[in-house]
């Protein structure tokens, strides 16, 4: 269970948000909404442990989550607004260069975003929507319970958005948790919208 208590973020000299509190149970999803600059990305990076909170605490099963950054990193899979794709590597290589990982696992992850045909293509040849899908295929490869998605649907076609929704629903069904920031309405069962501008769940 993930719990945020009175989180605040400061970027530059500006207070982005404060007093953000929420609880996320297993199987729960939180959809962050709010205008540009409301702090959706900041909150996601904060929960990922990339940014230290200016105030407040983030609790995982009741203990401080940010105490041990490598341990916290193992609990989550983060897909930021940058795709983190190396154009010089092939599509499959971009998912990790671990030789011991079976290729079938990588291909299955690529199949979850309908990219398995391009596995051996250099990633520089992908279109921007395909790059986004490649970034999202990291979710299928990760065993982490918490998915953090920053604008996951940017550049995706309608079929890919449906596929992403199905993947998220399956993850939630298996007891996973999702926090997603998005402007487009994502059709997720049981997802709570969380308005950062109004700061009320």
């Amino acid at each position, binding site marked *: 269970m993930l719990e945020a208590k009175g989180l605040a973020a400061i970027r530059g000299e500006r207070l982005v948000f404060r007093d953000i509190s929420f609880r996320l149970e297993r199987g729960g999803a939180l959809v962050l909404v709010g205008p540009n600059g409301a702090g959706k990305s900041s909150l996601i990076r904060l929960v990922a442990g*990339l940014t230290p909170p200016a105030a407040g605490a983030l609790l995982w099963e009741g203990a401080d989550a940010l105490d041990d950054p490598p341990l916290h990193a193992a609990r989550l899979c983060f897909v930021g607004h940058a795709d983190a794709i190396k154009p010089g590597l092939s599509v499959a290589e971009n998912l990790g260069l671990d030789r011991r990982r079976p290729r079938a696992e990588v291909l299955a992850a690529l199949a979850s975003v309908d990219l398995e045909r391009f596995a051996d293509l250099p990633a520089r040849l992908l279109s921007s929507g395909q790059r986004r899908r490649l970034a999202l295929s990291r979710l299928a490869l990760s065993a982490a319970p918490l998915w953090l998605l920053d604008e996951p649907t940017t550049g995706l076609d309608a079929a890919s958005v449906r596929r992403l929704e199905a993947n998220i629903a399956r993850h939630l069904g298996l007891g996973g948790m999702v926090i997603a920031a998005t402007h487009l309405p994502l059709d997720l069962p049981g997802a709570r919208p969380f308005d950062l501008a109004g700061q009320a769940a």
Partner: protein
Amino acid sequence: MKPFLALIRRELILALRHAGDSVASLLFFVIAASLFAFAIGPSANVLSGIAPGVVWVIALLAALLPLNRLFAADFEDGSLDQLMLSGLPASAVALGKIVGHWLTTGLPLLLIAGPVAIMLRLGGDAVPQLLATLLPGTMLLSLVGGMSAAVTLGARGGTVLLPLIALPLMIPAVIFGAAGAVAQSPFAELAMLGGLLALFLPIAPLAAGAALRASVG
């Protein structure tokens, strides 16, 4: 250990796919050294006298060239976020990138330094001693340079700032390295270089890791 080795492997594969970056610093090394030969003249006496110092200084400058992309490329495309969340402590990510820099820049420079020194009329029997000082020298530059690259990451004018931070820190290494390359018995100088290495091996990754944490935040 496994994710750390995977990170180094990734660095090597990426360097191989973008071989131009590593080759550029090697070519810089060769061309800058030959400029000395052209500017000072072919006199063997003069050239062989300055060869160890010239090789040392130019090797440092050449190894500096790829440093401003060491973390910046990963920072810009979001890979640094993924590296920080790969389960490795930030200092281990920094050390992995530093080792990658040495393997793709320091080691090739070391391999080509011998022929370049001979081109500058250094006697063949003096070359092993020069390389013995350059081995810890290039490692030191990777450590100090990697630390500087992390500190200047995301800063405006980082490209200019990086050598301004890294090169002064390298002055002790240059003093003892260039002196050790021509000393009768270079053990004291090599011991000093080893001491510097022992100092920066823990400090540089820790400082770089803290800087990386601050810049992704």
